[in-house]
C-alpha cells in the first residue's frame, strides 16, 4: 500500500431492526481526493455519512470495516474515537450543526487549542481561518452566535471548523441543498478551494444534485436502496451511464432543465 487512504470503507452493512439500510458498501478516499455519492432520498446516502462519522442511531447495527487515517473505527461512536480518526462534518442543517449559545469564536478556538496553540495564537488563527473561508469582518463574526448568521455564512463557519481541526477527510452531506443557488455556487467554490490545496483534506460529497457533484468531484459512486450500483469517474458516469438508475437520474435532471451532457461539452 503506497498511500494510506484518508477514509476506507469495506463491505459495510447497516441494519435498523431487521431492515437493511446499507448492503456491502465499499468506498475509499485518498487524501486530497474528492468523491461524490449520488442518490435520492431514502437511498442510504445519509446513513453512509452517519456510519462514517460514528453518528448512527443507537438501535442501528453495523458490520464491515471503517478505517479513518488507518485507524479502525467501525464500532466506535464519534465521542469515543481518537482525535486523528475523526472526519470533519458539513451538513445540510447548518443551524443544528452549531451550538446556538456559544460564540463562533469559541467554537473555532477550542479545536485549535487542542492542537497545541496557545490562547492568542488560537484567536489569531481562528480569525485567519474565518477570513480564509470568505467571511468579511471575521472579528464581528467570531463574537456572534450561529442563529445571528445567514445559512450561507453558517455553512462557511462549519467548513472553517473542519479546517480548524485539520481533519484528513470532510464528509459533506447535502451541504448546499438548503441554500439558494447563488450561495450554493459560493459554497461549492469554497469546498473546491479548501480541498484542492496540497495536503488538503479528502472530500466525500453526498448529494442528489448532479450539477453540483460534477463541478466539484473527480470520481462518483451512485447509490440506490443501500447498494452502490455504479462507480467511476464523474465524466464517464454522467456521459456514458451504464446502470438504468443512473440513466433515470440523468434523464430527470434534463427535464428539470439541467443538461448533464453539456457539463462536459
Amino acid at each position, binding site marked *: 500500500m503506497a498511500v494510506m487512504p484518508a477514509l476506507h470503507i469495506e463491505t459495510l452493512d447497516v441494519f435498523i431492526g431487521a431492515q437493511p439500510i446499507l448492503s456491502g458498501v465499499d468506498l475509499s478516499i485518498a487524501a486530497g481526493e474528492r468523491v461524490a455519492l449520488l442518490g435520492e432520498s431514502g437511498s442510504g446516502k445519509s446513513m453512509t455519512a452517519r456510519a462514517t462519522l460514528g453518528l448512527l442511531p443507537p438501535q442501528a447495527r453495523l458490520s464491515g470495516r471503517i478505517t479513518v487515517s488507518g485507524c479502525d473505527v467501525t464500532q466506535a461512536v464519534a*465521542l469515543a474515537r481518537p482525535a486523528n480518526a475523526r472526519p470533519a462534518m458539513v451538513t445540510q442543517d447548518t443551524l443544528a450543526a452549531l451550538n446556538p449559545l456559544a460564540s463562533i469564536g469559541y467554537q473555532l478556538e477550542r479545536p485549535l487549542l487542542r492542537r497545541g496553540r496557545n490562547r492568542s495564537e488560537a484567536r489569531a488563527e481562528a480569525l485567519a481561518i474565518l477570513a480564509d473561508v470568505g467571511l468579511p469582518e471575521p472579528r464581528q463574526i467570531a463574537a456572534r452566535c450561529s442563529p445571528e448568521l445567514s445559512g450561507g455564512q453558517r455553512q462557511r463557519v462549519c467548513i472553517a471548523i473542519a479546517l480548524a481541526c485539520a481533519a484528513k477527510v470532510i464528509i459533506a452531506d447535502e451541504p448546499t441543498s438548503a441554500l439558494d443557488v447563488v450561495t450554493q455556487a459560493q459554497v461549492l467554490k469554497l469546498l473546491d478551494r479548501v480541498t484542492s490545496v496540497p495536503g488538503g483534506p479528502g472530500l466525500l460529497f453526498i448529494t442528489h444534485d448532479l450539477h453540483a457533484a460534477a463541478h466539484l468531484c473527480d470520481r462518483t459512486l451512485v447509490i440506490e436502496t443501500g447498494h452502490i450500483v455504479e462507480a467511476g469517474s464523474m465524466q464517464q458516469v454522467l456521459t456514458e451511464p451504464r446502470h438504468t438508475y443512473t440513466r433515470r437520474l440523468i434523464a430527470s435532471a434534463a427535464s428539470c432543465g439541467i443538461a448533464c451532457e453539456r457539463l462536459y461539452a
Partner: protein
Amino acid sequence: MHHLDRLIPALSRGVTLLAVMLLVGLLPWISGRDPAASILRARMGDQNPTPETLAAIREQLGLASGPWEHLTQWLGGLLRCDLGTSWISGTPVLPGIIQALGVSLTLMAAAFGVALLIAVLLCWPTMHRGLRGRDTRSSGAMAATLTAMPEFMLSALFLVVFAIWFGWFPPYGWQGPQHIVLPALALGLPGGGLLGRLLTNAIAATFHERWIATWAVAGFTRGEIARAVLRRSLPALMPQIGMIIVAMTGGAIAVEQVFSIPGLGRAVLGAASAQDLPALQAGILILLLNALMIGVVANLIRLALLGRALHMGALPVPQVHAVHASRRAWLVPCTVLLILLVLVAAGLPRDPFTSQFIRLQAPGLEAPLGADGLGRDVLARVAHGAVSTIGMALIVTLVSLVIGLGMGLMPRLALGPTEVTKATPPTIAALIVVAAMGPSATGAMIAVCAVAWAPLAAHTAALVSEVRAQPHVWLAPVLGVGPLRLIPRSILPAVFWPVLRHAMLRLPGNALALAALGFLGLGPRPPSSEWGLILADALPYVERAPLAVLTPVAALALMSVLGVSLASLARR
C-alpha cells in the same frame, strides 16, 4: 390595531395581577362573615353577642364601611407596610408573618438543597451515557415515582418510620438542625424528582442535537461538552424550575402542619381555620409575592444563560424521539388498578360511618384493617374514600379540561391568567376559597379546578400556535376556509385528543391535590370518608395504630404510581 395586538399580552398580565389583588383585598367582604362576631367569639368565648357590643367593636376597628372603603383602606395600608390588625389577637399581623416567613424560607432553602441533590443524582447517568455517545433515553421510572408522592403523604410516612419506629429524628418542633431533616426530605423529594425528570429529558434531548456531533468531531473535551449541554438545556427549563419552587411553598403548608413547624404555611392555615381574615390576607399576599419573586428570579437566570442568543427570536427546541412502548408497560397500571378495584369491592359494602368497633381495634377477621380512633372500619372508610376522592377528581378533571381548552384557544388573551394560575399551588387557591366560602367538598373542587386548568390551557395554546404555523392552516383562506370554520376543521381535532390525554393523566394528581386539601382541613368536613381526611384523623394515633395511617398512605401511593405509569405510557 397592530399596536393593540402587541399590547394584549402585557394588558392580560396586568389585569390578572390587579384582579388577584382585588380578590385578596375583598376577601373579608366576599366571605360575608361579620368580623365583629368572629372577634367577639375569639376574645370572649361563648358570650352572647348583643347588637351594642358588636356595633362597638365595628366602630373600634373601622369596619362599619362598605366593600370599596374597606378595599381602599386595605390597599392604603399596604402602601404604608401595614397589613392590618388580627381579629383574634388584636395585634398587627405583620411582625408574626415576617417571623413565620423566616422559618419557612429556611425550610424551603433546605428542601431546595435536597431537591438539587436528588436532581443531580437522577440526571447523572444520562449525562454519563450521553458523553460516551450512547443512547440517552431512559424510562425515568425512579424520578417519576418520586414526583408523584405528595408531600403530606411523605411527611406522614417519614413521621411513622423515622421519628416513631426508629426514633432517629424528633417528630415535631423547630429547635435545631435535627428538626429540619425530615421536613426538608418530605418537601424536597417530590420536587427533586420532578426537577430530575425535567433535567434528564432536557439533557437527553440536547444530546440528540447535531452540534454535539460537530463538537465531538472537532475534538472538544467531555467537560466542555457537558458544560455546553447544561447551558443549552437549562434556559427552557427555568420557568418550570421556578414553578417547582413555588409548588414547594404550597407543599410546605402541609409539611409544616404535620411536623408542627411555626412557619408561614401553618400560620396561614391557622388563620384560615380561625377565620382571622386580616392575617389570612397578609399570609396569602406574602405567598403570592413570594411566587412572583421566584418567577422573576427564574426568568432573570434564564436571560443570563441565553446571553445574546435571546435577541435571535426562536431558538430551535431540542426534540427527543419516542421509544416504542413495550407490552409489559401496561402491566404496572393494570395491576395497580386491579388492587384499587379489589380494595373498593371489598370495602364498599361495609359501613364507613358507624362506630361499631373498639377504638383503634387491631386488625382481625371482622375488621381486616382495624378500626380508627372513633371505632370505625378503616377498610370501609378507605374504600368509600376511593370512590368519593376519585369521583371528585374526575369532575375536577373534566371541568378543567373544558376551561383549559377554551382559554387555550385564545392564547394571547389568556396569557396573564394562565401564567398567574400556573404559579399558584392548589393549597393557596384553596385558602382563598375557604376564606370566601368556608371549608367544603365543593370548595376544594373549586380550588383544584381553579388551578388545574392552567397547564391544560398552556398545552392547548402551545398546540394551537404550532397548528397555526403549519402551511395547511395558513393557506386555508386561499381555499375559502375562514377563521371560524378553521377551529372545527383543523384546530380542535389537532388539539383535543392530546389535551384530553394530558387531562386524564392529571386525574390522579388532582385526586392527590383534593386529598391534600382534605388533610389540611380545607376540603370535605368530618365524618366524610375522603382519603386526606382519613389520614388526618388517623395521624394523632400513629403510635398506637400505625396501620390506620399506613392504609390511606398506601392507597395514595398506589394512586401516584397509577398516575405516573399512565403518564409514562402516554409519553411514549
